[in-house]
Structures are given as C-alpha cells and as structure tokens.
C-alpha cells in the first residue's frame, strides 16, 4: 500500500539522531569550522553512543556504515497470498538518521568515528570474512587522484600481485580522502592492469597505519571544515591478498560493476546529507521570517502571498521532492530493486536543491544569512560539497541519461 510517511519503527532512531544533532553537533559546529584540522574529540564519545544505538536495533545505523545489503525481514505481507512484502531496512533508516545528523552538522557527521563512506563500500561488496575483519572499523574512501576525478576509470594507482608473499603492492597518489587522516582503514581504488581499463579497477582495504601509505597533506576548504580531507602517497604499499574487496578476477564483460555498485548505496546517503543540511537552512529561515511577521499559507496560491512566503514555499517544495527521492532510492536498495537511476536522481536533485535552498535562505535572511554569528552561512558553504563528492551533479546527469537513453559512455561522453 502506497505510504510515504517516515516508518514508525524508525521514529526512535530518528528522534535520537535529532537529539544528538541538536545537543552535541550544533553546539560545536562553529568551533570546528574555525579550528580546521583539529580533531573533534567530542565525537569519540558520540561514536560509542552511536554504536550502542546500532546494536540496540537490528536495522538501525546513524551513519554511513548502516547502508548495505541488510537482510531484514519484510515488514508486511499484502495479505493476498503473496509472500513478498515491502521492506524498510538499513538503507532507509541510515538515510533518515543521516538527514537528522546533517541537520546538526555535515562536517561533524563525516568525522564521527566508524561512520565513513568506506564503511558503506565494505558493507556493499565485502565477503563475510572481510566483514568480520573490517566491519566494525572506521573506513575512509580513496578514489580521486590528481589526474582522475569524475573519470574514475582512468585512475593511475596500480596494484601488483606479488606471488611470493601473497600480497598486493600499491603505488600511486590519492587526494580528497574524506576522514583519511582520522580513519582506521582506507579503501583504495587501484588498477590490477592499466591496459584493460575499468574492469581491472578493484578496491583494497589498507590499514591507515600501513607505512607504505603516507599522509601528504590536509586540504583547506570552503566548507565541511570539521572533516579532514587527506592526500596520500602510496609507495610500495603492501596489503595481504585478502584485502581486495570482491572478486580478484578481471572480468571485462562485467567491467566496473563491483566497485560502482557501492555508489548505488552511498549516493542516497550523500543525498540524505544534502536534505538534512537544506532542512537546517529552511528551519532557521522559517523562524527568522516568522519573527519578521511572514508566515507561509499553504492554502493560498503563491501569487497571493508575499514574495518572501512564496519563495519559501517554493524552496520547501523542492526540499520535499529531494527528500522523497532520497527515501525512494534507499527503499529500493532495501528491497533489492535495481536503483542506479534512482540513486543518481536522488543525488542530483538533493545536491542541487541543497545549494539552491541555502542560497535562497541567505537571500531571505539578509545579513543574518551571511554573518558568522549564525550558522546559515556555514551551512551554505558546507552544502556545496554534496553536489560534488560521490559524483558531481553533471556526472549524475550523465548516469541518468545513459541509462534512460541506453547510451554507452563512449556514445554519450
């Protein structure tokens, strides 16, 4: 039965995430925006609480680690003899709690130990043995290189198998690794054979302490300054053969499948981050407008209201669309429906809507929108990354178009 309300069983989790966002993240949001690169130590104790939250509910996860191939039971049968019901699982619960946490602070969410996007990669493609070994640990994701951003198929980092030691030897340079400095593990994308192209690209779990992976620098950024963004040099970095995620076979037909399927799980989560940040902007602005005597009327046509109220309602509508599309993509992942298109639709819509809303709210709030005495200006800086990482707006549009139109990447460049 069609129902787009937030699932009842996730309400406690969402409530907790909102409380954490309000009581823990918001109060220190400005502090770590100013003190870029300083480790937010308040989050260590938060990680312990969040782990407790995850353990208490079979399907609950407050950070990126929760998404993946959850095996929850269907939530309801349809009562007509059909066994399959719909499932509300960890992809949806994770997306919903990320929205709440990012209402608090995006940069801090990305810095909560154990909640990295690398964890989603592991959850999506790891073997049971790998899950056991790496599952509970904080993992960052290293894809981008100085010469390969969105075109991740052309990465130059190599992985050579050393039969003598049953190890892979990684060489190359990785940049823009979110939480790379602080995480315990880094999931590194590298090519087994650069002559084969994308099919040879595999992901490897590298211990952060591996002496072959040296921290080169931390970036200074426009926003999400609480989150460290690291650059690494991999020089004869040796990892055991068991560190390769998924299959070591280079299957030219299957191509990129293994590593790319991670994105079907992580893109809805990044969309959720944008949705949460946009909600923070809207809540702040609604309050500011109400203090100024402007209230939105949901009965009256837009043109019968003040320009400010009309603009607010228009932004709220786009916000709702982004939120529902994000829930749809996560719901599809929970129900094992192929969701590549919807994941990219959610990411594209939420990414651009987040930035549009932040800027629109600044317009409505004026000086309050840009002053550092409030957080709105910070959210407007933070939110921009969400239209860039895990695939830019333009990459999402390419993915959607290629799939809808049946064009290959060689045809639709």
């Amino acid at each position, binding site marked *: *039965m*069609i*129902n*787009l*309300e*937030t*699932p*009842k*069983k996730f309400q406690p989790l969402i409530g907790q995430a909102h409380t954490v966002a309000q009581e823990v993240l918001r109060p220190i949001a400005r502090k770590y925006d100013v003190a870029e690169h300083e480790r937010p130590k308040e989050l260590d104790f938060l990680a312990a609480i969040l782990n407790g939250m995850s353990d208490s509910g079979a399907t609950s996860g407050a950070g990126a680690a929760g998404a993946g191939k959850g095996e929850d039971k269907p*939530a*309801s049968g*349809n009562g*007509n003899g059909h066994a399959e*019901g*719909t499932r*509300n699982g960890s992809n*949806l619960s994770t997306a919903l709690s990320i929205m709440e946490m990012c209402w608090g602070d995006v940069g801090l969410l990305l810095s909560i130990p154990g909640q990295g996007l690398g964890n989603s990669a592991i959850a999506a493609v790891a073997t049971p043995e790998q899950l056991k070994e790496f599952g509970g640990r904080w993992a960052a994701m290293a894809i981008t290189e100085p010469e390969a951003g969105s075109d991740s198929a052309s990465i130059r980092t190599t992985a050579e198998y050393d039969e003598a030691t049953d190890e892979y030897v990684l060489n190359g340079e990785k940049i823009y690794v979110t939480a790379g400095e602080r995480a315990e593990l880094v999931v590194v994308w590298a090519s087994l054979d650069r002559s084969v192209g994308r099919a040879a690209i595999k992901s490897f779990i590298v211990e952060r302490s591996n002496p072959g992976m040296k921290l080169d620098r931390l970036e200074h950024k426009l926003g999400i300054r609480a989150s460290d963004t690291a650059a690494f040099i991999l020089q004869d970095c040796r990892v055991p053969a068991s560190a390769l995620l998924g299959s070591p076979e280079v299957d030219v037909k299957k191509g990129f499948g293994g590593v790319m399927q991670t994105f079907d799980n992580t893109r809805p989560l990044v969309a959720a981050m944008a949705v949460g940040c946009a909600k923070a902007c809207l809540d702040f602005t609604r309050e500011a407008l109400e203090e100024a005597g402007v209230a939105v009327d*949901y*009965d*009256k*046509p*837009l*043109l*019968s209201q003040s320009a400010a109220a009309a603009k607010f*309602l*228009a932004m*709220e*509508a*786009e916000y*709702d*669309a*982004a939120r*529902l*599309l994000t*829930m*749809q993509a996560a*719901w599809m992942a929970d129900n094992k429906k192929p969701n590549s*298109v*919807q994941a990219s*639709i959610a990411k*594209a*819509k939420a990414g651009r809507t987040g930035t549009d809303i932040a800027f629109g709210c600044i317009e409505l709030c004026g000086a309050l929108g840009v002053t550092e005495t409030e957080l709105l200006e910070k959210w407007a800086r933070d939110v921009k990354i969400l239209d860039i990482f895990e695939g830019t707006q*333009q990459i*999402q*549009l*390419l993915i*959607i*178009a*290629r799939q*809808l*139109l*049946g*064009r290959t990447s060689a*045809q*639709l*460049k």
Partner: protein
Amino acid sequence: MTTVAERSMGIGLKALRQIAALEVIDRVGLRGPAERALYSVTKNGMGAAASAGRTFTIVRGSGKPERARPASPKGVFDLTPDEDQQMIVEAMKEFAAAELRPVALAADTACAAPAELLASASELGLATLGVPEELGGSAAERSAVTGVLVAEALAHGDLGLAVATLATSAVPTALGLWGDADQQATYLPAFTGDEVAVSALAILEPRPLFDPFVLETKARPADGGGYVLDGVKSLVARAADAELFLVAAELQDRGPALFLVPTSGGGVSVTAEPAMGVRAAATATVAFDGVVLPEAALLGGADQDVYAECIHRARLAWCAVAVGASQAALDYLVPYVNERVAFGEPIANRQAVAFTVSDIAIETAGMRLATWRAASRADAGKDFFREAAVARQLCVKHGAEIGSSAVQLLGGHGYTKEYPVERWYRDLRTAGVYEGALLV
C-alpha cells in the same frame, strides 16, 4: 451567451468544421479515428441537448451519510500500489494508449472528446471511482491514491482527454466525501445508473491572481429559505453537457462554500471558452444569474475545512494529470533523441540534449512522489494540505518547464501538430492555472 441546451446543439457543427479542415489528420494517418470521433462528437452534441436538464427530485436519505473508510497503512514506507490499484492502473494505461492517444489531436482541435470514448469511460466506472460501495460506487476505502494513479495513467494518453473523462467524477466524489444522506440519495443515482449524468466542479473565475478562498461568485440567503447564486466561472470542463454543477461561491457571512446547482432550475448559461490547453475537455464559461437554490443545495454545510479540503484534493488531481503528461513527454523524448541524427550522430549523444532528458526524469519523479504522498495522507485521514501545496508547486513549476523542454528538444518538429509535444506544452502550462474541475 446561450442556454445549456442551445450551446450543446452548436458543438457538433463546430467540431465538424474544425476536424474537416484539419489536413494534418490525413498526413499522420488519423483520418479513420478522427472521423469516428467526428461522428461521435456530433451525436454527443445532439444527444446532450435532448437530455440536458435532468430534474433531481429531492429524496430523503436514511439520515446518515455513507463514507468510505480511511485507509490504514501499516506504518511502512512503501511505493507499491496494492493489487486492486495495480489492476486498475494497468487497465487505464491500456485504455489511455489505445483510446486516448490516437484521438487526442482530433479532440484537441474539436474542443470535444468523442462520445464513444466518453461512453467507454463511463462504462469503466470512472465517475464513481470515489463513491462509497454502499452507494453504488467502487470505493471501499478512501481513494485519493487510486484517483491520482488513474488520473496519471489516463493523462499519459492525453491530458485533455483525461480531464474530459474524469471531470464528471468530481461531483459524485464530492458527494461521497461530504454529502449528507439526502444529498447522496438525491444525486448519486444519476451517476451509478445506466445513464451517467455529466457534472462539473466549477471553482476557477476569470481574473488575474485568482484565489479560490476569495470568490466573486456570491451566494446570499433567499427570502423564505434557500440561496440565490450569482457569478461567473471559467474553464468549466464539459459544461455544455453538464446537468449538475458543484459551484464554489462566497456564502454571505460564512466564507467560501460549495453549492449543488442542477441546470434544470434555469439561470445557468454556458458559453464555449476554448483555451490554450485542456481543449478536449470542452471548456466553457458558466454564468449563474440569480439562480435560486434550496437549503439542501449547500454541500458540506459551509464548513471551511471541507472547502479547503476540496481545493486541495482538486489540486492533487491536477498534479496527477501533470505527472502523467510529463511522463508521456519523457517516454516520447527517449526514442526521439536516440533516433534523430544531427552532425552525424544521434542528438542523444549531446550532453545539452541528454541532460535535459535527465532533468525531466528527475523532476517528474519528484512530482510523482510528492503527489502520492499527499494523496496517501488524505486517504489515511491525516492532514495533507501542506503536502498538497508542495505537490502543486512542484507540478505547476516543473510541469510547465517539462512541456517547454519537450518542444525545445524536438526543435521545429516540436512546434508542429505532427508531433504531440506542442499539445503537452499547452496542456501542462494550462494545468498549472487550474483550480477545481477534477477531484480525487
């Protein structure tokens, strides 16, 4: 201005002239269906003139009105229509593809839907989709979700014809939702029997910045009971054929309210008002000139919540047809941009083209989810006005953009009547200004 009966006679002849003059029908091979439509339209015009003015004798009901029960979702996020909904949507999709799309151009030109199409629609039971089972309808549970799914499926065939086939269901749906027992007993048999009455929900008025909560159509208490209704309504669907109107009017000292107005009582005149879009719905201006109404004409007792609910439900129905037409545009564009070659390769290979297709897919998906959410809240008995306002904003803004983008991607082709996209351009822009006419 003429009376309802005179106006109905005229439609057939006008349709004849317009369709006969339409050379494009020959070129695109529509002559067969168009001629059938033409024949039916003429027949319809004459027939309606004879039957217009059914008298509704006030019947006493059992005292307690029947209501469809609220839906009870299990608290699970779910985008799967239930089995009944899946079946009806499949049927409507087939009906839309086989019966609506082929005659859409002819109906658009004629400003009328083929009578046989309307007859098929009424055989399908569209008029009573929202009427409780106890009253001869097909709704066991509240049916806003079913309503938007059906409207979306039909509008995928053609938005104008979807409005033409669904408009008459607005009044019975309203009677199911808000009618008292007497009103249900008096009016619903006209929709559940063999000869399904044509009716119309008239809210929109012809002026800029129209606000359905600030009406210039006025109802004042009549001496000795009842009301007197005066005002003008715009773009009323199938008004010339209608035997019963549900009219929004400002009730003196009580705010906007809904009135059941049979044409048989006189004082109602209809003037054809062809518009840029939604032409197949035979839109007309309807003037109410000192129409005397009994007490029982007031639907929902001038309750302001009922009135607001009616406005929002109407907006949701318009959202649904906008979603259907937007999806139709997307489905049409995909093969077109793949096949159309420029500079030696399909234009689909160009980002400027492909990204526009992506944007249409993104916004259509968002429009659909927002519409479904508001409808499902309505069915569950939850407050849904904010959600309906959000859905409307999305569908008005992006629907119009999608219509425009579709024409743009076809270029010169898109501007001609040989392709359906110019019609979607007009229909989607027009849909954005509507209030009333449809109801879920």
